[in-house]
Each structure stands twice: as structure tokens, then as C-alpha cells.
């Protein structure tokens, strides 16, 4: 049926990113963590 919600349905509104949000959030979170731990984002830069 046209009105059914299927798990594989893409976002219904145009303009949304199609990248898997879970993996994107995981990648962004871990990259930021790594940048802080190696000193690329030093103390005092983030208010």
C-alpha cells in the first residue's frame, strides 16, 4: 500500500541527508574524541 511505512523507505521530506545517521554520529563523535586526545583540539578552544 502506498501509505505503508517500510523500513527501507527513504526520508519522506526532501533535503534530508541519506547517510545512515547512526554510523555518521558514531564517526563524528569518535573523530572528535580522537582529535581532542591527540591534542589537535587543545584545551580552551571549545567554550
Amino acid at each position: 500500500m502506498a501509505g505503508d511505512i517500510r523500513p527501507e523507505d527513504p526520508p519522506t521530506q526532501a533535503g534530508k541527508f541519506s547517510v545512515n545517521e547512526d554510523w555518521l554520529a558514531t564517526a563524528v563523535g569518535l573523530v572528535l574524541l580522537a582529535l581532542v586526545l591527540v591534542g589537535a583540539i587543545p584545551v580552551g578552544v571549545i567554550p
Partner: protein
Amino acid sequence: MSSEAPSRAEIDSGEAPAPPSWPWIVLGAVVVLGLAALTQFLVTWVPEVTAGTGFGQVADSIEFPVYAIILGFLGNVILSALRIRRRLAPAFRTEFFIKTGVVLLGASINIAVIVRAALPSIAQAVLMISGVFFFTWWLAGLLHLDDKLRALLASALSICGVSAAIAAGGAVKAKKEQLAYVASLVIIFAVPAIFLLPWLSGILGLSPAVTGAWIGGNIDTTAAVSAAGAIAGEEPLQIATIVKVTQNALMGVVAVLLSLYFTFRVERSTGGERPGWGTVWERFPKFVLGFIAASIIATIFLSAAADPDGAKAAIGVVNNLRTWFLVLAFVSIGLEFQASSVREAGWQPVVVFAGATVFNLVLGLILASLLFGNFQV
């Protein structure tokens, strides 16, 4: 929450979607960032200017989620009046912001705490999901609601709000309007709970762990759990997050069970593909893995650091980043909110949602007290 979770604007039914437009998306991002920056400014500025006045003590106790959500709602009203809110909506990424914030939150929790909390969290999640799901299913049946709407309401209330409703919607082939309606109810009930539960926890004198477990087990959306946890304090926020992500992780199991039930009992169809472990993995909220990975990395980093103070300062920077992502998420909650689909839906589902929410609160408080009464963060 699952990766398929759309924002409120996405699931709103009955309105034509706006065409994608990068200038509008960039403008939306500027609005979200601007309101987040204003939130951070108000958190320090309001207590400073009200110090020594009657409002000073109150201002001191107002946490950032309060400013963020209020500013989000104000922005919502203004952008709606200007008729540009829907064009900017693709930038209001509540789900992405909250998931990134949760991953970063993992860095402030020792992995040993997650391991110790895992067993009571799983026990609470299984008991809460079973209890609230069947109570909601029963109450909705009493009011003669459609089986698919019953499944959506029961999943949303017992697991994790909008994402669970979407997972259940896919499993039982619900209508888009039913999903939009349940999602609206989730948000409408979650927003007051953000303020109510920390306040009640204080009145009841609950410990930080019980407060966190109660918040994590009760409030339906992960973003609202984080907001309530942040208002209650750092330790309640940590436990609330662990309890909530445990509940989220069980969403795939419930989706599979619902698929099986609707395939073989409700619709009596035998031709459909049988759901299995693939569905469980598909519905598993993968950012939970990022949360655990961040905790392991930070725990090793702190224990192996030659300069413990420097290492702690670095984790402090991670915490600041986490706060920014949470502020972005809370601002987006306010910006995305719209109650239009609720007006068309009738009173029965609202009664079911309200009744099940009260049951959820009581059962959650009992289980949190039993399972986390002696827990030390």
C-alpha cells in the same frame, strides 16, 4: 534510536515536502548554531546579571536544556510566522545531534560503570518494555483502537518513542498518518517530562543512580532523556543514558516479535518473508557501539596517561563538545515541534498515551528503586 528515525518535520503528514535547497539548509544550520550559541551565553550571563537579586538563586539552578528548548520553541514560533520553518527544517537534525552527543558522553563514563550497570539496565529494560507494552496494548484494546495503532502506541511508550514507533510501523505495516500521530504524542508528552521527572526526583529524595534509571526508563525519546538527565545532574545523566541505550538496543528484538505476530496472527499471512536476525541488526542503534567505544578509549587514555591532570583536561574538552551537541539537539527539539497532526486524531489515543505514561512512571520508579537502589556511579 534507530537510524531510520526521521525528524518531526519528516514524519508530519499531509503537507507537501519542500524541494531540497542548500541555501535554505545552510540558513537553517546558522539558525540552529546561533540559538545554541545564545543558549551557552545565557547559561553564564543570566546568573551573573541576576546575582544578589531574588531571581539569582533560581537562575543559578537553570540548566542549559531549559534555555535551549525555550529558545527552540521561540525560534519555531518566529520561523513559522515568517513561513520559512519548513524550508529550514532539513537542518534541524535532532537525531544526529543527540546521537553524536551520546557517543561523546561515552568518553566521560568509565567502562567499568557501564559494565556494572549493564545487568540492572538490561533487567529494567526487559521488565519495563514487557510491562508497559502489554499494559498499553491492553488499554488501547479496551478503547477499541486499531491493532496497528495499538502496536505503534505500545512500542513508542515501552521502548524509545519515535524510533520505536517507526520500527513497529515497518513491522506491522502501519499507515503514515498513524505514525505521524504517535510521533506527535511522543513529543507532546516528552517535553513536560524533561522538567517533571528531575523535579519529582528531588522531591522524592531519589539517589543519582535511581533518578537516572527512572528518567532513562521512562522518557520516550533519547534526546528528552538526555535533557532531563542533564537537568538532574552529571551522574543521573550517565545512568539515564546507559539505561536508555540498553532499551534502544532491544528495539530490534521487539520489531521482529511484532513482525512475526502480525504476519502469523493478525494478518494470517504465510507468504511474507520471515523476519530474523538481519532485522535485529538492522534495527540495532549502531551509535550505541560508538558510545561504548568512546568509553573504552577514554578509560584507557586516562589510566595510561603520564600526565593525569592533562588527560582529565582533555576529557573536559570532550565534555564541552558533548554539551554543544546536546544544546544543538535540544534547540532542534523546539524548532521541529509541531502539533498539527494531533488535532485531527480523536481523544482515545491520547487517553491511552496518558494512562500508559502514568503506569510507566510508577513501574519505572519501582524498578529503578529495586535495581539501582544500591548502585554507586
